């Protein structure tokens, strides 16, 4: 197991390097002169030159990348063009909100998804199964920003006004954004759990359990579920990443001051260091979560050889 952990860590390094290279190149892939575009169309030639200097665009590419990577390792992501503050500080001030939002939404989608999936699988081909699967299909097909708008429309605006329209902080603020972000994930986990349960229920060892005289309740919740959850774990990891990305839309809809809003504002203001920094941080976070999920998958799935 330890060998596997080390090998898996080593495998992550090229991906992380690739991520930094890609994020670094963002600035250079801008069509035209990045300094001109970032400085704005009305900028004078000296202003553009100053911008070029400030972004370090005069140096050879390799040197630029070296500095970028060195900075990333030390937690220095450059300075915001708009505010002049360090990017890491700007992100640091916002990141917890986004992580909270993603974590709560992941918890919601696991909770809802598992229950729906298990009910659906155990009551296969009944009214409940069909209803749950139809709802899941809708959940999967709904743009989450639209779901957010609709939730605001019906639960935050008059007449109901159960929840605040926007912002973050109190428990009431959490409900609508988390539903908005968690619904698609719940749908995916429900579908995955259902098919995984149905596959497991047909396995020989389930028949063995029944032949042993195990109560049907335990056949499902002890013998089947433990096995069915193994593939679901990987989906949960991927979902967490998708949710991290999805916060961009949810935060925009609910005017939550998280990293998603930060990115969008930065894109609109052409504040490239902020865009680069945020994208990089989210990607690193995602790679990290996937690493953890992968390792726990290994741990759960004892059938995989631990060579």
């Amino acid at each position, binding site marked *: 197991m330890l060998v596997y952990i080390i090998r898996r860590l080593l495998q992550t390094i090229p991906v992380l390097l690739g991520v930094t290279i890609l994020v670094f190149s963002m600035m250079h892939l801008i069509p035209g002169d990045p300094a001109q575009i970032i400085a704005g169309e009305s900028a004078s030639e000296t202003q553009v030159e100053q911008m070029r200097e400030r972004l370090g665009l005069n140096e050879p590419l390799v040197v630029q990348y070296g500095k970028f990577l060195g900075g990333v390792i030390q937690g220095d992501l450059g300075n915001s063009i708009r505010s002049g503050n360090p990017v890491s500080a700007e992100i640091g001030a916002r990141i917890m909100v986004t992580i909270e939002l993603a974590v709560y939404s992941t918890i919601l989608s696991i909770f809802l998804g598992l229950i729906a999936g298990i009910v659906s699988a155990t009551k296969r081909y009944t009214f409940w199964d069909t209803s749950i699967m139809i709802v899941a299909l809708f959940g999967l097909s709904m743009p989450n920003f639209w779901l957010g708008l609709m939730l605001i429309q019906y639960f935050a605006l008059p007449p109901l006004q159960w929840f605040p329209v926007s912002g973050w902080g109190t428990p009431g603020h959490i409900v609508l954004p988390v539903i908005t972000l968690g619904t698609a994930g719940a749908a995916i986990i429900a579908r995955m759990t259902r098919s995984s349960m149905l596959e497991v229920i047909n396995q020989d*060892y389930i028949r063995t359990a029944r032949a042993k005289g*195990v109560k049907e309740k335990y056949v499902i919740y002890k013998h089947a579920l433990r096995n069915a959850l*193994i593939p679901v774990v990987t989906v949960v990891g991927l979902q967490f990443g998708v949710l991290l990305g999805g916060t961009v839309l949810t935060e925009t809809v609910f005017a939550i001051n998280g990293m998603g809003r930060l990115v969008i504002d930065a894109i609109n203001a052409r504040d490239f260091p902020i865009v680069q920094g945020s994208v990089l941080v989210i990607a690193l976070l995602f790679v990290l979560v996937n690493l953890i999920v992968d390792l726990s998958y290994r741990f*759960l799935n004892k059938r995989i050889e631990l060579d």
Partner: protein
Amino acid sequence: MENNQNIIEVNELQTSFFVGGKEVKAVDGVTFSVPSGKTLGLVGESGSGKSITSLSIMRLIAEPGKVKGGEIKFNGENLLDKSEGKMRRIRGNQISMIFQEPMTSLNPVFTVGDQIAEAVMIHQGLSKKEALKKALEMLELVGIPSPKARLKNYPHELSGGMRQRVMIAIALACRPELLIADEPTTALDVTIQAQILRLMRNLQDELGMSVILITHDLGVVAETCDYVAVMYSGKIVEYADVNSLFANPKHPYTVGLLKSLPRHDIDQEGELSTIKGMVPTPDDMPKGCRFAPRCPFARDMCRESLPHLEEEENGNQVRCWIHTDKWDGPEVNVKHDYESAASQQS
């Protein structure tokens, strides 16, 4: 056959599967019994309904299958009348089952010890600690080396033969009166097969249980069984004690099976004879005797009407027109004439 001597009596068992609005009769009026302490071999090709018969006895037929009729008397009580709760207390306790695929029949996420202990905990109400002790005893009983260490192993850490021993340990943990073994050795290497069969026979003597051994291998039957029921297309075609069956097979299908068995005691020249044709599919079930399309002796009467299972004086049974008064063909000695008749079959 007196009732009190039979551990189990299956009468006119009907099990069907309902697929796409159509009924497929997997087991169609099967009748047999197993005398106490004896071993019955249930023999037939794949698709003959032998596994479905065993699952019907366990009442483990899953949707879209259903036991439609007949009765299964275990110790004089009809299992088909029992509530699911009562049936559950019989499963793994009085009637146990082991399956063909030891590789997939154990739950991969639980240790071997836990899986054996579970049965004991359910049926004997033992604590986990006591149950694990019992599990250890069972592992010793089925001859697994260093049983203490194995207790904590997961199934994937064991070989196929070892896993089947674990399956046997699970099945026998509660000292059942009847063990149903569904092709227990088919998936194993030949040398392991012999070991497992010997183990089963020894444990049977030791525990005094009855066994239904399901197999397609007549060689295994000859070595282990007291009685044999030959199944074909959901029906019993011949039932006999093992000596009579091998010495004097009555049904052409039984003879065909025996002919296709490789013999080690005599030098055999040429190819093994096999039975021509295929097992009929449920959509294409013959009207008369189900074996008629493949039978070298088949006549019009065979193709038109289904013979009954006729009991002979010695208690053996056969379902074939040849052995009835109504037979309208020339006199046939099924065993001797089979090969010449088969060679003329087109």
